[in-house]
């Protein structure tokens, strides 16, 4: 029988972590794109649009991510689309993060004082101009820390893709555990790798929050 050394465990986990990172990046990019679109719909003045996005956000915030993954995996299969665990995970995580990001960003846009809108309108600027030159630059500043903070949730969320059979860090961990019967060691290393991925993001988010808030007080 082949012997699995500690070095093999570590190497395989690190190799699997690539897929965690890649899936996180895809989910973040997709979620940010769709989330931006949703944010604009949400702050539009069309009631029906506002309601639709609200329901969308409620649905994704009120159901477990695991259920969303299952539905993406089995639901798209029903539609006759042959979907791999990869595709299902990427879709589900993209939709999941778009709902959360758009909710975060709406809050940021709304945090810009109403007076700014009125002042800009008085100056004769159109909607697009107001957005581009007045509101978004200010909202962006507020949005960066929570956005970075949410990326931690995405990285952690990718762990659930292991359940539908996508071989990333957590799945590699369970597979190595089955092969070596050293759960304590294997899952401790898995946890450490996740920690190393997430902790810098958490810290960056806290740092940015402090820095941007201080800058705001001075201006």
């Amino acid at each position, binding site marked *: 029988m082949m012997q699995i050394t500690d070095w093999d465990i570590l190497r395989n986990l690190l190799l699997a972590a690539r897929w965690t990172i890649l899936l996180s990046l895809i989910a973040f990019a997709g979620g940010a794109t769709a989330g931006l679109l949703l944010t604009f719909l949400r702050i539009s003045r069309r009631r029906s649009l506002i309601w639709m996005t609200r329901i969308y956000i*409620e*649905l994704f915030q*009120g*159901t*477990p*991510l*695991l*259920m*969303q993954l*299952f*539905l993406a995996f*089995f*639901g798209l*299969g*029903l*539609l*006759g689309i042959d979907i791999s665990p990869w595709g299902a995970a990427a879709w589900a995580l993209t939709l999941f993060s778009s709902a959360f990001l758009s909710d975060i960003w709406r809050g940021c846009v709304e945090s810009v004082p109403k007076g700014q809108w009125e002042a800009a309108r008085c100056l004769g600027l159109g909607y697009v101009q107001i957005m581009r030159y007045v509101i978004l630059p200010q909202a962006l500043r507020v949005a960066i820390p929570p956005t970075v903070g949410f990326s*931690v949730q995405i*990285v*952690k*969320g*990718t*762990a*659930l893709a*292991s*359940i539908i059979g996508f071989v990333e860090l*957590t799945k590699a*961990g*369970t597979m190595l*555990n089955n092969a070596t*019967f*050293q*759960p*304590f060691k294997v*899952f*401790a290393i*898995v*946890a450490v790798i*996740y*920690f190393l991925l*997430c*902790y810098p993001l*958490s810290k960056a988010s806290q740092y940015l929050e402090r820095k941007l808030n201080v800058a705001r007080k001075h201006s």
Partner: protein
Amino acid sequence: MDYQFNFADLLNYRDVWISGIWMTVQLTIFATVGGLLLGILGAAARNHPLRPINMVASMYVEVIRNTPFIVQLFFIFFGLPAAGIKLTEVQAGMIAMIINLGAYLTEIIRAGINVTPKGQIEAARTLGLSSRQIFIRIVLPPAIERVYSSIVSQCIIVMLGSAVVSQISVPELTYAANFVQSRNFLSFESYFVTAGIYLLLAFLMRVLFALLGNYLFSRKEKAI
């Protein structure tokens, strides 16, 4: 698409669904109570003047918040028995949920504590209250009231996260869904209905917590 949806057959497994929901509710109740106690303890430790206590609490929070729940669950369920601690699936799931919620609540409650006006603590000290009395009677109640909505959101997130506990075969709601779809192959229908039930549970939790909040925080105002 020529797939015929068949929700009616799910009803044949009524008992499985009901016992699954009941298990999820039980897990949530225990996790909420345990998590709150752990969070209060953690917040007290985070503000403790002794540095080692503070550091242990801070490490606990950082480690839990920066690793996925499923890894924490696997570590507890597979890892602890290897270290000689035997746990049933339900115990392991519950412990994982409490530990997870406790870390988030530590930070949330601490945020509520940190904005307590210094004068109140000084006044309480002048009245001769001990540090423990000050924490439990003066600092904690208004702190919890201040961050109540964040606490509620976090408890709901943990309830939804409990779906993952099905992976160590705790017979809760998601486990029921997996069980049903493995019998009748109505996977989409099963998970669709399950998602709906979770949505309903989240809604009910929000309502119950709102009622509880009204009850807890309005009495005080009447007394003044």
